[in-house]
């Protein structure tokens, strides 16, 4: 009935196991395969709203071709059969277009949220979904600050749909379908670091044409897709109050406290139990 050696070691063993399991907290690649993240620069001042990206995305990913046309002021959203959409906004500088898709965060909330690593930040920078691991809990959707992952609510074998930066094309050495087919040159694929430089260059060389802000450089800890615009981003329906810390940072404190509690709690509980035991030794033996 009392805490014997065996029970004590059992508790210690479990605690130790929890410590080991709780160690790796960040979705970070191992140092040896650390390569530069790729990304896409989207320059909304060049975008003509032709929707070619939408149709080429649908074609490349085997999704139904988009049917609805762009209309200024009508906000279309990505859903389980549309991984990217372009919307038109009546802004202070007239009609402006904005493409939306998964932002491919540097430290994605969805991947940190995923308990099976189905949502996964590849070393190339694309955030992908792996169906054979996913259990469909939709915690990625709860966590994503951009509401990127979409769920097939009307399927008995539902998938999570979102832009994967055409990861399978990337592995073949090709660029994402939307980038390849954009006739206006609004989309550029490259290493994220180079894209930031390119974006800065455009802002510096064309004063007055751009607002002095690269959306995605710092938002949510930095994203793979980065945006340039002629008008403030809030006019384009983007969340500009988004935090610049990464989202997994928000639950890090809690996760770090787990191993500590796992070590301290049993010890404290045993201590209290020993301290209060003498008063009631006569009732020992009751389970």
């Amino acid at each position: 009935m009392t805490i014997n050696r065996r029970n004590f070691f059992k508790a210690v063993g479990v605690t130790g196991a929890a410590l080991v399991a709780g160690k790796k907290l960040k979705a970070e690649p191992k140092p040896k395969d650390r390569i530069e993240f790729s990304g896409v620069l989207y320059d909304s001042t060049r975008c003509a709203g032709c929707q070619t990206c939408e149709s080429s995305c649908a074609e490349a990913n085997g999704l139904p071709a988009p049917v609805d046309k762009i209309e200024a002021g009508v906000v279309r959203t990505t859903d389980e059969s549309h991984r990217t959409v372009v919307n038109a906004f009546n802004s202070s500088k007239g009609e402006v277009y904005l493409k939306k898709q998964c932002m491919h965060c540097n430290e994605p909330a969805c991947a940190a949220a995923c308990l099976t690593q189905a949502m996964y930040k590849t070393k190339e920078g694309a955030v992908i979904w792996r169906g054979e691991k996913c259990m469909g809990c939709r915690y990625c959707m709860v966590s994503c600050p951009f509401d990127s992952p979409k769920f097939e609510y009307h399927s008995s074998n539902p998938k999570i749909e979102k832009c994967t930066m055409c990861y399978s094309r990337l592995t073949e050495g090709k660029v994402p379908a939307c980038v390849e087919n954009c006739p206006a040159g609004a989309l550029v694929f490259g290493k994220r670091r180079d894209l930031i430089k390119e974006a800065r260059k455009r802002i510096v060389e064309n004063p007055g044409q751009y607002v002095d802000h690269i959306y995605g450089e710092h938002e949510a800890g930095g994203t793979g897709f980065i945006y340039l615009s002629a008008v403030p981003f809030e006019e384009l329906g983007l969340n500009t109050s988004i935090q610049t810390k990464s989202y997994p940072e928000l639950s890090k404190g809690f996760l770090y406290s787990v191993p500590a509690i796992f070590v301290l709690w049993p010890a404290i509980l045993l201590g209290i139990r020993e301290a209060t035991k003498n008063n009631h030794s006569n009732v020992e033996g009751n389970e």
Partner: protein
Amino acid sequence: MSNSNYVIAKDNDGRSILKFLAGELKPRGKFFTPFNIISIPIMILGLVLIVIRFWKGLGSITNLTQEVPWGLWIGFDVVTGVAFAGGAYVLTFMVYILNMQKYHSIVRITVLNGFLAYVFYAGALLLDLGRPWNVINPIIGNNFGTSSVLFLVAWHFLLYMIAQLIEFSPAVAEWLGARRARKILSGMTIAAVIFGITLSTLHQSGLGALYLMAKDKIHPLWYSEFIPVLFFVSSVFAGLSMVIFEGSISNKVFSDQISDKNQKSHDSIVIGLSKICSVAMFAYFFLQVLVFVHGKRWDLLRTPMGYWYLLEMFGFVLLPMLLFFYSYRRSNIFMIKVAAVLTMLGVILNRLNVTVIGFRWDAAIRYIPTWMELAVTLAVIFTEIWIFRWVINRMPVLRESPEWVKDKE
């Protein structure tokens, strides 16, 4: 172990274990009770709805949207249900760690209640999973998502269910007449209790931590970095209010099983719990005030959501806290029960405010659960009560352990 079969045989008129179990499975007592008449149709309906859900997808019976992917089944069944199941870890802490033996007579029923709550409410999670066949992935190590709070919560649910089963297992052994098994199992109780309390601390707060990354989606009056602490502290009085509430019903329904001694001590137990509840609620209220002041949220109070927040804080935290304290001083059992019900309503309100009502409060299309989601939830609750009743009518949970247990001591 050949004698364990022998013991069962002797204890039950020489029948084999299979016959004994078959006999125990049969319903007892009157069948057409009001509870049965209400619960059976709802359970059948729930079963039909669950079949439709797995056949046609989640969207066929739920109102979940791309913006609000977690609805009633997570917000109420899992998050609220687990808070109510918190009584088990609080009571085992009081009895086995603090040695407050006064509460020993209600440990078994509370642990049983907690165990079944976890089995059913965490089980309700399976209904919500889009791809439930992959649910073993985080368990078998097919890629551990250790950076996920949900990974932690899932493992803790599983381990805590095992811990609670061990805590309850002596009652099963007494029912089966397995004397040696009982001895071994009751020797494991303390380890299970300590492990269980540690796990509970972490996953009660973990359920709140799940929502930490949804920073921009939850109404600021309910979102703070302290959600885990608030969830943990409120699970103490949520669980104990449930113990008071469930105890007052069990005492009537199963009065034939409770010994006179325990029947008499029940009032003093309830009064003791009332005091603990009021202290825990004071701590919780104080924390909430700190979070509110720290977050500088005064301007939000004069909005509809602000009034809603004030109603929760004053009507369902402060008021029941004062009621608990007042009735504890006056030994007023009836008012304690009123306070317990108010507290439970407050906990439901709080959990739903974080998970459903305040989640995407600004969305153009609000999520409102369908009647079918409600029906499935009710079916889950009724099934749990059925199993609960089945166990209590057969195992020594409320009634005294068989004589042979005492003989040994």
